[in-house]
């Protein structure tokens, strides 16, 4: 008999207009030592179904169906035994380790709470905690006990979270998007850890994710959910290589693969429109009364953006990529360095150029919802750029251009008087694209434009972005932490680390022949949505997390984490040209 069995589970919520069904009769089972991946987009009901197993759904949820763990019915359990099940029988790891750890408790206090709940006061709690922390390979576990969550990095926090769940030795481990909030390199570390733990403990794992790539390597079975139903299930090979359901096919097709060459990339020979020379951005903040701390977000980058080019900027969170792009768009004033825009040298006092920049550099942000004023209707949102920069236009003319822009992104004027919250994420991002293109800018700056969207609409939005860019002949600066998206969209890529460019290269060259060890590590860390490749791949993980931009290493920025660090790395590195690649590693050939 299976360890966990779910039969015809249905979850509904009563609403004023009737009932809404979020999970619609799903059945599955999970065996000892098995990893079951539940894949689906937001709203597919994947999280709701596992929360129901834990008894964590809100009180107004109506649950029908059966769920049993080792033959015990999970739904008949009264409130008291429900709490025995939580943690001890079923452990859960949540998406964001920052919000799932209490910021006011030390790691030790945090972890002993659950222990005491299930096993009472015991003298060896600390020992147990230490063992658990060691089992998740947390460096220096003893000193961590007294630390607070904010003193740990994201990856370490997720390790602590996993340790505190594993300490209770649950029979089933539920991981709800455990790596979504983490950087790729850290994601790879955590995935590797989960894989190892699975082997060591022979645990049953329920792995929930929206990203098919993540689970290709570690799952034994995959279950695809759409709109509350299971549309397909099978082994990873079946799902990835011969999907039968159209939704699964669509999902698989929509994942950009890192190992596929970008066919449309080309190097623009047109005139440069943005040129930066040793651009530096520092932020100062007061520490205490008299001391000041300098955060060096961007440390001297040279870049040239040519007309019609798509320039990708990749790097882990905190590497300064957003700051750098904002400095190029003159939203943030650079601390030093030269900036030439549209052939004119930029200075903050040049009002005319500033106006021109505001008109010709448009920005698309990560979260489309929050980049529109919730109290403005779509019509006013889209006409704002026009009356700011083309005030001489008549009302009819403005409306005409807004309608035209909407048509361009596949929407029509019927949405004129509606408000942002009435639209889905994908539609919102279309509206934002319409707003960005309405002034026919020369540069569109995209800051993680698809990270907040579901996988299946990402591709549409990216295609739209590309079409729009081609049509108005603009250049794109594309910031992303998602390397596969960058590979498919960009012409040229800058790899940033701690405020510096470590490698600048044409896209295919960068991915096919990465020259810098950091680039290699980044590329290596991205899981590939193909179980065969994923299982054979030997991943060389880089250790640790990106260091803080306040205390910088003196030599090569990457020295602390670099696997090939040797003599000479302690000296500052300069970008040098090898073939078409510029790389700042003295070992690169």
């Amino acid at each position, binding site marked *: 008999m299976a360890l966990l069995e779910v039969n015809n589970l249905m979850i509904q919520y009563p609403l004023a207009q009737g009932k809404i069904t979020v999970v619609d009769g799903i059945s599955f089972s999970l065996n000892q030592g098995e990893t079951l991946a539940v894949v689906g987009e937001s709203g597919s009901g994947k999280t709701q179904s596992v929360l129901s197993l834990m008894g964590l759904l809100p009180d107004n949820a109506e649950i029908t169906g059966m769920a049993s763990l080792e033959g015990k019915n999970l739904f008949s359990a009264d409130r008291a035994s429900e709490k025995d099940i939580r943690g001890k029988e079923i452990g859960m790891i949540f998406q964001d380790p920052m919000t799932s750890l209490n910021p006011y408790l030390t790691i030790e206090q945090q972890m002993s709470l659950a222990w005491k709940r299930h096993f009472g006061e015991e003298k060896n709690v600390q020992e147990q905690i230490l063992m658990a922390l060691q089992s998740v390979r947390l460096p220096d576990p003893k000193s961590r006990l007294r630390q607070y969550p904010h003193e740990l990095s994201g990856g370490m926090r997720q390790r602590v979270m996993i340790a505190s769940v594993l300490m209770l030795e649950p029979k089933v481990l539920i991981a709800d998007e455990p790596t979504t909030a983490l950087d790729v390199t850290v994601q790879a570390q955590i995935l590797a850890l989960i894989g190892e733990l699975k082997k060591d403990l022979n645990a049953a794992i329920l792995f929930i994710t929206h990203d098919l790539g993540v689970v290709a390597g570690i799952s034994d079975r995959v279950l695809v959910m759409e709109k509350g139903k299971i549309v397909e299930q099978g082994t990873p090979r079946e799902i990835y290589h011969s999907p039968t359901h159209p939704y699964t096919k669509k999902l698989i097709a929509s994942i950009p693969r890192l190992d596929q060459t970008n066919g449309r990339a080309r190097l623009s020979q047109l005139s440069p429109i943005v040129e930066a020379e040793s651009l530096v951005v520092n932020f100062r903040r007061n520490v205490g009364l008299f001391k000041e701390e300098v955060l060096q977000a961007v440390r001297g980058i040279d870049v040239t953006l040519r007309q019609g080019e798509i320039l990708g900027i990749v790097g882990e969170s905190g590497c300064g990529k957003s700051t750098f792009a904002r400095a190029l768009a003159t*939203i943030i004033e650079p601390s030093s360095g030269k900036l030439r825009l549209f052939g004119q040298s930029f200075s903050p006092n040049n009002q005319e150029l500033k106006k021109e920049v505001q008109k010709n550099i448009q920005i698309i942000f990560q979260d489309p919802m929050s980049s529109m004023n919730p109290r403005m209707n779509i019509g006013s949102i889209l006409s704002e750029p026009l009356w700011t920069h083309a005030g001489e236009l008549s009302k009819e003319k403005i409306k005409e251009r807004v309608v035209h822009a909407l048509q361009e992104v596949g929407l029509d004027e019927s949405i004129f008087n509606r408000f942002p919250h009435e639209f889905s994420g994908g539609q919102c991002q279309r509206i934002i694209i319409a707003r960005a293109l309405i002034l026919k800018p020369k540069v569109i700056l995209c800051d993680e434009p698809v990270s907040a969207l579901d996988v299946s609409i990402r591709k549409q939005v990216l295609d739209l972005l590309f079409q729009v860019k081609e049509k108005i002949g603009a250049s794109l600066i594309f910031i992303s932490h998602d390397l596969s998206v960058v590979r498919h969209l960009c012409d040229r890529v800058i790899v940033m680390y701690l405020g510096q460019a470590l490698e600048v290269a044409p896209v295919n060259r960068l991915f096919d022949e990465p020259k810098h060890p950091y680039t290699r590590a980044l590329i290596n860390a991205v899981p590939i949505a193909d179980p065969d490749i994923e299982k054979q791949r030997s991943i060389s993980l880089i250790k640790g997390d990106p260091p803080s931009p306040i205390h910088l290493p003196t030599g090569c920025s990457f020295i602390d984490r670099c696997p090939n660090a040797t003599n000479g790395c302690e000296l500052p590195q300069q970008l040098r040209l090898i073939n078409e690649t510029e790389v700042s590693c003295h070992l690169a050939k």
Partner: protein
Amino acid sequence: MNAQLSKNIWQEAWEGIKKNSRAKIAFYVMSSIFLFVIFGPLLSNYAYDFTDWSYLAMGPSLSNGHFFGTDSLGRDVFVRTLYGGRISLLVGIVSTIVSLVIGVTYGVIAGYVGGKIDAIMMRIVDVLYALPFMFFVILLMVFFGRNIFLIFIAIGAVNWLDMARIVRGQTLAIKNKEYVEAAQALGVSTWDIMRRHIVPNLLGVVVIYMTLTIPQVILVESFLSFLGLGVQEPLTSWGMLVKEGAEDMQNMTWLLMIPGAFLATTLFCFNFIGDGLRDALDPRDR
């Protein structure tokens, strides 16, 4: 466009109130009290300062036209209660609007401009906070004599400090939203950003705070009147009436009960409406 904006928030507020039955009832009761206070005096033959020597200190009666009775000076309590209501509600609403206009403007500027200007503006608020309110009112009374407009000024001058702090805090949060950054990047002027992007998004908080301020102001006025610093006889307010009623509580209960009931009902209504609006306009609920 602005019409659309405000229509939207008021619609939202109204829908929220309709959903919350307590707030809905409170809203209807409040509207009736408003109408009653405005048009009620037409039902009576007496003026608020008229002394009816034939009916001194009489209880409520329908037959002689003193629906709520008379006080010890023979003045009609019905008309006096309604006139008192006009004053109380006027003080409540005018002072709130005064504090709203000053507070929102001040808070938005301090919060949005930030930096040194913010620091200076908020320190001024801190200094004003430190002035004892009663001292301030007594000082005003001593210099200018008792005057209803002084009450508006005094209360408004103190209440906007709270409003400014709340608005500044909210502005700081809204300022970091991506749509404000988008507008800045687009080159929308500071004034337009404040007017189009920040103020409309503050409305939820402001409307709620307003419904909570009105009863507070009415209470403050009652308190001032109670101490004899409020409106001047023969004009009256609910606070004054309650004070006078309290003096004759044993013999003439109606003098306390009737204006007291109006005052209490109004305060309850505003509080319920405020609760309802808070739920209706809370962005987390959307």
